[in-house]
C-alpha cells in the first residue's frame, strides 16, 4: 500500500526532523568532502530518520509548494527555531525547479549520500534548470529516488511586479485611510492587504525587504508606515506569532503613525532642529493616533492592540521616551516589535531634518548599543538575525574590489555576513549590470570563499538609488 492509498502516519515531529536534517546535509555538502566526520554524522541521522519512516510508509515524498513543505501530505510547520531550514530548502528546491523528491523503500545510505552530494554540489544552471539537473540525475542513476519538476501552476514566473504593485497600493491605501475624516475605516481591506503582504513575505522575503529601500514615495509617513508594517510582519513571523496575531501586528504597524496626520507639516518637515514647543507638539502624536483610532473603534472593530501600538511605539523598554506612563510597568509585545522596526526604518531614511543617514549596517549597530534600554534585547537580537549583518539594500564593497547591493540574506546565523550580492560596479567603479553572486560560493581549488564583504558604504552619498535595483525586477 502506498501513501497515495492510505493516510500518512508521519508525525509533525518526525517530518520536521527529516526536513531539518535534509537541509543541514544539503548545506554541509556544499562545503565538505563526503568523508568529513561532521557530514557523516549528520548523514547518519538523516538516513536513520528516513529509514524509520520508509519502513512504515514505503515511500517518502517531500513536496514543495509555493511557500510550504509537505512530507507525505503532512504540511511541516516551522517555528522560530526551524524557520531558517524552511527558507533554505524552499530556496534550494525553487532554484532548481524541483517540485518534489520521492524516496522509496530500499534506499541505501550510500545512495542517499551520493544523491545529497549530487544536489549540493550541482552548479545551478541559468536556464532550464530542472531539465539539466534531471538529465544528470538520470545519468547518475539513483534507483530509489525520484525527482519531479515543479508543476506549472506552482512555478512562479515572476511575481515581482505583482508584489511591487501591492506594495505601492499599500501606500495609497494608507493615504486614503489618513485622508478620510469621519468615514469609518474599511479594515477588511487593510487586513486583506496585510494578508497579501504576509503571503508575499513567506514566498520572497528578500524582495520585499528590498522594497523597504523605497523611501519617500509620496509622503514619508505613508511610505515609512508600509515599510514598518512589512518588517514587523516578518519579525513577528520569526518570533512565531500566529496568523491572527500577525494580522493584528500588521494592522498595528501600518497605523502606528496615524497621529502624525494631526501634526502640522511645517513642524514634521522642519529642516532645522525643533524647539521645545515644537518637540512637545510632535510628542503628542502617539496620543493623537490612539485617540483617532479610538474614535474609529467606536464605528469599527479596531483591535485594542492597534490602539496600544499607536500609543506606545515611542516608549522605550525602560519606560523612558514618550508618553510617560504613570502606572503601567511594561509595554505590549506588539509595541516592542513596532518600536524596533520603526526606529530602524526611520534612521535609515534620508529626511530634511536628519543630516546623518545611517547605513543599514550602522543602524543595526547603533540599535544594538541601545539594547535593554530602548529596545527589548531578545526581539532586537531576532531582528538583527532577520536583517542580517549586511541588511538587504546595503551597498557593499567586496574583496575583489567590486561593489554591489545585498539582495538576499543567508538564512544561517553563522553565515550572516555571506549574503547574495548584485554586482553594480567593477573594481574601477564603472557601473555595470552585474550578476547576483552568492558569497558562500567556494573556490573549488582553494576551498576558500570566492568573495567577501570588506565594508558597507552609504549609498545615498554616491547617489545610488538602491530601491531601483529591486524595482527593476518588477518592471
Amino acid at each position, binding site marked *: 500500500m502506498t501513501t497515495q492509498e492510505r493516510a500518512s502516519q508521519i508525525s509533525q515531529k518526525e517530518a520536521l526532523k527529516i526536513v531539518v536534517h535534509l537541509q543541514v546535509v544539503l548545506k554541509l555538502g556544499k562545503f565538505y568532502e563526503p568523508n568529513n566526520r561532521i557530514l557523516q554524522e549528520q548523514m547518519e541521522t538523516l538516513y536513520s530518520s528516513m529509514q524509520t519512516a520508509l519502513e512504515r510508509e514505503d515511500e517518502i515524498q517531500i513536496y514543495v509548494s*509555493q511557500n510550504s513543505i509537505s512530507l507525505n501530505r503532512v504540511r511541516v510547520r516551522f517555528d522560530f527555531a526551524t524557520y531558517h531550514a524552511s527558507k533554505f530548502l524552499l530556496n534550494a528546491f525553487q532554484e532548481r525547479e524541483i517540485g518534489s523528491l520521492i524516496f522509496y523503500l530500499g534506499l541505501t545510505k550510500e545512495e542517499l549520500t551520493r544523491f545529497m552530494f549530487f544536489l549540493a554540489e550541482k552548479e545551478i544552471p541559468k536556464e532550464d534548470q530542472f531539465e539539466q539537473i534531471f538529465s544528470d540525475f538520470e545519468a547518475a542513476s539513483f534507483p530509489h529516488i525520484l525527482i519531479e519538476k515543479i508543476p506549472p501552476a506552482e512555478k512562479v514566473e515572476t511575481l515581482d511586479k505583482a508584489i511591487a504593485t501591492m506594495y505601492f497600493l499599500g501606500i495609497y491605501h494608507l493615504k486614503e485611510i489618513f485622508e478620510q475624516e469621519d468615514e469609518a475605516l474599511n479594515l477588511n481591506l487593510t487586513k486583506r492587504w496585510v494578508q497579501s503582504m504576509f503571503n508575499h513575505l513567506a514566498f520572497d522575503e528578500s524582495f520585499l525587504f528590498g522594497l523597504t529601500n523605497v523611501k519617500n514615495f509620496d509622503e514619508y509617513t505613508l511610505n515609512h508606515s508600509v515599510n514598518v508594517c512589512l518588517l514587523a510582519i516578518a519579525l513577528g513571523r520569526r518570533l512565531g506569532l500566529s496568523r491572527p496575531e500577525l494580522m493584528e501586528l500588521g494592522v498595528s504597524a501600518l497605523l502606528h503613525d496615524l497621529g502624525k496626520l494631526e501634526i502640522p507639516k511645517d513642524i514634521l518637515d522642519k529642516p532645522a532642529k525643533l524647539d521645545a514647543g515644537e518637540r512637545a507638539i510632535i510628542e503628542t502624536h502617539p496620543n493623537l493616533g490612539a485617540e483617532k483610532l479610538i474614535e474609529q473603534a467606536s464605528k469599527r472593530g479596531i483591535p485594542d492592540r492597534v490602539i496600544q501600538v499607536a500609543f506606545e511605539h515611542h516608549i522605550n523598554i525602560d519606560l523612558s521616551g514618550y508618553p510617560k506612563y504613570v502606572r503601567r510597568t511594561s509595554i505590549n509585545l506588539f509595541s516592542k516589535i513596532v518600536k524596533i522596526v520603526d526606529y530602524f526604518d526611520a534612521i535609515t531614511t534620508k529626511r530634511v531634518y536628519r543630516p546623518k543617514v545611517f547605513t543599514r549596517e550602522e543602524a543595526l549597530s547603533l540599535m544594538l548599543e541601545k539594547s535593554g534600554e530602548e529596545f527589548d534585547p531578545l526581539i532586537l537580537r531576532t531582528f538583527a538575525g532577520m536583517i542580517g549583518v549586511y541588511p538587504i539594500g546595503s551597498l557593499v564593497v567586496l574583496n575583489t574590489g567590486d561593489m554591489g547591493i545585498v539582495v538576499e540574506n543567508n538564512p544561517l546565523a553563522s553565515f550572516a555576513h555571506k549574503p547574495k550580492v548584485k554586482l553594480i560596479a567593477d573594481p574601477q567603479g564603472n557601473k555595470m549590470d552585474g550578476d547576483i553572486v552568492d558569497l558562500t560560493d567556494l573556490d573549488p581549488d582553494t576551498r576558500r570563499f570566492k568573495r567577501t564583504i570588506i565594508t558597507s558604504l552609504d549609498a545615498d552619498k554616491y547617489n545610488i538609488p538602491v530601491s531601483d535595483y529591486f524595482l527593476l525586477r518588477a518592471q
Partner: protein
Amino acid sequence: MDPRNNPQKPLEAKGGSPDPETLKRVKELFLLFAHAISATKLFPAHHASVINFQEELYDKLTKFLEEHEELNIGIQENAFTYEGEIAYRDENILKSLPYLFFKDGMHKLTFLRDLDKAELLAFLDVVRTVSLLPPDQHDIVESLWEKDFPHSRYYVPDEFLESRLAIHQKKALDFKIDKAQMSQGKIELTAEDREVIHQKLTARLQKEQKEAADFASLTDSLDKGDSSLIESMLSYERDISTALDFLGLIFELLYTEDRLEPFKKALSFVEKRYQEWLKKGDFTYVAISIRQMEDLAQILSLNAPERALEVEKFLKTIIDQCPLEALLEMARQGQIKDFKSFFEFLRRLGSKTLSIGAELLEDGLDPEVRSAAFEFLEEMGKDHLDLLANLAQEQKPFITKAIIAIFSHLQDQKAIPFLAKFLSYKNKDIKIEVIEALGRFSDTVAHKILLEFMREDKDEDIRTAAAEKIHLSLDKDLMNAAVHLALAKNFHAKSLREKEALLKALERGGSDEACDFLRVLLKKSGFLKKAKIEESRLCAVRSLETIATPKAVEVLRGGAGRAKKKIKSACREALERLTTGKDAGKERPS
C-alpha cells in the same frame, strides 16, 4: 494573478465534463454543505439536525476524498461548480453560500484528502460565523487565512485586491526605472572611504584564512536558548488579558490627555467598552473599569479638576443608568462569569442593588453565589438597615432568615426594631430565628421583645423559645415581669417544657427575686390541677438547685422541712447534692 495566497493556487479544471455519477455525488455534497451551514445558523451546536448534517457531510466528503484525492469547488456569484458544471445554485444574495465566498474574491475552494472531522467542523464554524455578520463587516478569505486549515485551500486572484485597493487611485502605479542608466557612469569613492576599504581589506585577508577552515557551526543552526526565551515571552504575552491590558492603557491615555474634547471622546469610548462588557456579563472588566475611573478621578482632582469632573460625571451616568432588572436577569440566566466582581460592581452601584443581592440569595443554587450574596447584603446592609429589613417577606423565608442572621451578626441596636417587626409574622421558623437573633443582643430592648413573645404569642413553641433565649438579669423590670408571668394563674396549666423554660430563664437570672418566686411556687398547693402544680413545684426545686445561691439553698431547706413528701424528698436530695459528694462546693455566692 497571484497563485501564492498560501497554497491557494489556481486549480485547473480537468478536461471534459464530470461523469454523471460523480456530479450527482458532488451535488449532494454541496447541498449537505449548505444544509449544515443553515442548521448551525438556526439551531444550537448540540441540536440533532446540526449534528446529523455535519455527520452526513463528513462521512460523504471523506469518502469522496478517499476516492478522488480532492474536491475542487468552482465559485461563481450564485453557484458552486464542479469541473465546469453547475452543481449548486442559490440566487438569494442575502443567504447564498456561493455568494458569501464570491463577494470576497474567492474563485476556487478545495478540500483535500485526510481532512479530519475537527477541521471540517472548524471550517463550517468559520463559514457560519462569517455568514452571521453584516456583509461589510466580514471577509471569509481573511477568516480562512487566519485559521490556516491544513486540508483546505482556496484561490483568490491578486487582481481582486488590486482592484479594490485601486478604486480611488488617481495616480498611475507604473514605475519606470531606466535600466541603461544604471550601467552608465562611475562611482568615485571618496578618499576617506578608500582608506577604510584598504584597512579593512588587510584585516579581512588575515581573518579569512581561518574562515574557510571550519563549517561545523552550520549544524548548530539555531540558538536553543533564544528559542526557549521567545517561547516563554510569547506564552507570557498571550496570558495577559487583552482587555485588562487595554484598560491599563486607556488609564494612561486619559491621564496624559490634557485637552478636554479628546479627553471626553476617549472617555466615551471607555463607556462604550464598559457597556459592551456589561452586556456580556464580563463583570471583571466592568468592576475594574469603574475602579480605575474612580482612581483617575481622584488623581485628576489634584491638578486637573475639569477632567476629574468629567470622570465623575461619567461614573455617575453609568451608575445611574445601570439597568438593575437586566442585571438580575443576567445573573438568573447564568451569564455572569465572575460573581465576586459582580458583587463588587453592585457595591459601587449602591444600596439600590440590595434587592438584587436578596433575589440572588433567594434564587441562587450555587452555594458560592449565595455566600457572596450574603456577604454583599451584610456589607451593604450595615448602612441601610431599613432597606435591608424591607427586603424581608414572609413568603420568602430564605432571604428573611438571612436578613435576620445579618441583623444578629451586626449586633447593631438599630436593628432591634426591625427584628420586632417580625413579631407579626405567622411563619414559625422565621419567628424562631428572630428569637434566636434577639437573644444574642445584650440590649434590654431586645429582651423586652422576647418577653412579649413569651407573653403574647399563641404558639407554645415560640413562647418556649423566647423563654429559652431571654436574659432576665439585664433589667430588674424584665425579671419582675417574668416572675409575674410565672405567678399568673395559667402558669401551672402550661406544658412542662414551657414551664421549665421559664424557670430556666429565672435560673439564668439567678436573682433574689427569682428565689422569692420559687419559694412561693414551692409552697403552692391546690385541689384542682394537683398533678400540674406538683410538676411546677418539682421544676422549682430543680431551678433552685441550679441557682445554688445561699438564698436558693435557704429556700430549698424550707421546702425540705415543710413541703409534701415528694417535694420534700426532691428538696433534700437537691440539698444533699449541693452540700455533699462531688457536687459539694457547687453553692454559688449570692
